């Protein structure tokens, strides 16, 4: 009988819980609500925690230092996705109706979740901002009005890396006959750069070999044996999470020089290199933003947010991903500010925010004002270009920190743009979309 009582109690608790799921009061009316799809647990939790701590710290800074955006305070709720596509969709659905103005703009922080949301965003009128990840051809805003792969996309990164390798070899003409391996995370994320690297290989005449690493990537013995047999001149590392550190330490084991390895920006944070220890010395990474605390905005965060005990985690301040989270939040806030310029100083809806992002113009002067000067390049978006600069900057891991070794540079932007338009046009046909700019 006691078992039955227990069961009954469990069932009642369940029913009560279910009843609680529905009535979620609209919270903090009159604020600009941000729905955040974060992840701090799971195989990529460390990366997510750094990014989202930076994101939330900047939102807190705007509230503490400026009392919101033109007086409109920010509020937010974070939902844990664990970098899992199905959970990401569930979180998105949960947050999308939380507030009268919706979740403002969503940063899925996962290429997989981005793919899951691309069809939903136009229906729900919620813009997606994918800073340096996601679907590359969404750069063509005429086909993807609701998706903003801002700063640089994977194809920019891939051509940028090829250009950097070319510079190291003494000019892109010298790449002919060289052997380059792409060691990639076997997922949508890792496959994004394939077409553009293949096009580059055909154009510049180098040999390209694609080697996948299955998720999560903590075992790469066979891949590196393959690399050793192939004897490439360079290895491009399209890693994420534990895969990057494993690649670096395995490379050391098989004796592949780390200063012939270049990661993309998701394989270029302290989390990756510190985990591999001395094996990381000399490793290059293409970067979207610089690391370090030497920016006035970081000092403001330390003063206004951490000084008041409202910060996330002081250990993360100034790391690559934390700074990136800060920048991602800054672009979102600036987009809302831009939208407010047109629609008035009140909380912006998803539609209004979308207009704000599309007409976003954060030039160097504005960056300096905001204290981001030097951390990220300027960004200007338009209807046909949802991507922006396409610039990357190379950093090298030396002596326990990332040091910039190049200026902001871009690869073959014309080729990327042509491929983006072709790919977007194909998508438009598949989905029956008429390309065009949205009004208002």
């Amino acid at each position, binding site marked *: 009988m006691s078992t039955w009582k227990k*069961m009954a109690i469990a069932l009642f608790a369940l029913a009560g819980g279910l009843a609680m799921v529905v009535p979620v009061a609209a919270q903090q009316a009159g604020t600009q609500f941000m729905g955040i799809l974060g992840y701090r*647990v799971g195989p990529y939790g460390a990366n997510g925690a750094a990014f989202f701590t930076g994101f939330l710290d900047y939102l807190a800074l705007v509230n503490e230092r400026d009392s919101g955006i033109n007086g409109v305070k920010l509020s937010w709720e974070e939902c844990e996705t664990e970098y899992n*596509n199905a959970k990401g969709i569930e979180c998105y659905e949960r947050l999308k109706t939380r507030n009268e103005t919706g979740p403002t703009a969503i940063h899925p922080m996962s290429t997989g979740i981005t793919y899951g949301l691309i069809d939903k965003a136009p229906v729900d009128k919620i813009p997606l901002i994918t800073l340096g990840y996601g679907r590359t051809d969404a750069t063509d805003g005429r086909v993807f009005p609701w998706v903003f792969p801002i700063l640089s996309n994977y194809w920019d990164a891939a051509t940028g890396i090829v250009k950097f390798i070319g510079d190291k070899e003494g000019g892109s003409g010298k790449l002919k006959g060289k052997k380059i391996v792409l060691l990639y995370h076997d997922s949508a994320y890792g496959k994004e750069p394939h077409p553009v690297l293949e096009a580059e290989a055909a154009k510049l005449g180098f040999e390209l070999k694609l080697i996948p690493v299955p*998720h999560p990537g903590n075992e790469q013995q066979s891949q590196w044996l393959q690399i050793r047999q192939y004897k490439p001149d360079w290895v491009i590392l399209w890693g994420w999470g534990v895969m990057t550190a494993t690649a670096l330490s395995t490379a050391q084991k098989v004796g592949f020089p780390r200063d012939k390895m270049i990661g993309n920006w998701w394989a270029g944070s302290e989390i990756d290199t510190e985990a591999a220890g001395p094996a990381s010395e000399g490793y290059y990474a293409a970067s979207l933003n610089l690391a370090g605390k030497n920016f006035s905005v970081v000092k403001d965060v330390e003063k206004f947010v951490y000084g008041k005990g409202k910060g996330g985690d002081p250990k993360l301040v100034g790391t690559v991903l934390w700074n990136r989270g800060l920048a991602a939040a800054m672009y979102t806030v600036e987009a809302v500010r831009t939208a407010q310029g047109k629609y008035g100083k009140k909380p912006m809806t998803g539609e209004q925010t979308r207009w704000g992002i599309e007409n976003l113009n954060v030039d160097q002067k504005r960056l300096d004002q905001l204290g981001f000067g030097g951390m990220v390049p300027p960004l200007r978006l338009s209807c046909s270009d949802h991507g922006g600069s396409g610039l990357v900057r190379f950093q090298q891991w030396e002596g326990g920190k990332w040091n910039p070794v190049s200026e902001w540079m871009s690869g073959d932007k014309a080729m990327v743009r042509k491929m983006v338009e072709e790919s977007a046009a194909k*998508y438009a046909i598949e989905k029956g979309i008429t390309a065009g700019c949205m009004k208002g």
Partner: protein
Amino acid sequence: MFYREAGQFKTTYAADQALFPIHQDRYAMMVILAIAFIGVPLFASDYWLTALLIPFLVFSLAALGLNILTGYAGQLSLGTAAFMAVGAVAAYNFQLRIPGMPILLSFLLGGATAALVGILFGLPSLRIKGFYLAVATLAAQFFIPWLVTKVGWFSNYSASGVISAQPIEILGKAFDSPQEKYLLVLAIVALLALLAKNLVRSRIGRAWMAVRDMDVAAEVIGIRILRTKLIAFAVSSFYCGVAGALYAFAYLGNVEPDGFNLDLSFRILFMVIIGGVGSILGSFLGAAFITLMPILLDVLLTHGSRAFNLNLEPGVTSMVQLLVFGALIIFFLIVEPHGLARLWQITKEKLRLWPFPY
């Protein structure tokens, strides 16, 4: 008192063979179906439909498919997600390559393709059993997502290997709102569940159970083992294939083949184990437990911590949720190792005696 069959006489064979011979069961089922088909679309929010109910139904269907193979025919499989992937990719390609293809037919053909692949990977089941067969089905689990990503044709040469499912349109009517998608999924799942319920009561179903219980004895009484096992693989994979197509078309929209990984296969296996091995109802209960319980816990924890003003770090609630979920699974398995369906059966037996148990 309420749940008693006294006075319900069966006067024909048909009445004796009815799906729900007890009136109360029949009425309860009608009420549930009425709520599911009429009440839910009218009152449920978009969040409930798209984030909870559609995945619940899709996973129920997949669990049902696996339950036919594992629960009824006794063949352990770890390839469920792979068969779902076949269904999704095949439905996408039928839709893409044949102009004017009706989408329901694409789903069916997707299921049929999965059935063929299922038969292929079921062939070793004649020689190997139990855990060894499970390992053999692992081959499907690794081979199929690999093949789909390796051969660009399957995803129409999409740069990232992602399949973007076409919009659903039936007889010129677009099914794009959550309500319409839910109804479509519900109708397909209800129909296939009814079919499964009848299938397991039929000659084939009895043959499956005979093979499951003792294959030598089954062979002696004249059941053709190979055919029976392969039919089980085909039917099971068909269900999984349709579930995969619905997963892609009605739930996610864009699917990367890696989504159909071993984790998903395990999740579906756990649904079957927790829901009840060899039970149609159990597939639904297990899917509900595995898909809805973590979300419920998450919501409860988030609201609970806010109500008590505990400033938990966002990651912490997630960890606690995992812990509680694990504990709950163990609790249910200790209380009733035969799954939630068996619990329901015991409840029914107790209800017959209630309120005067002896």
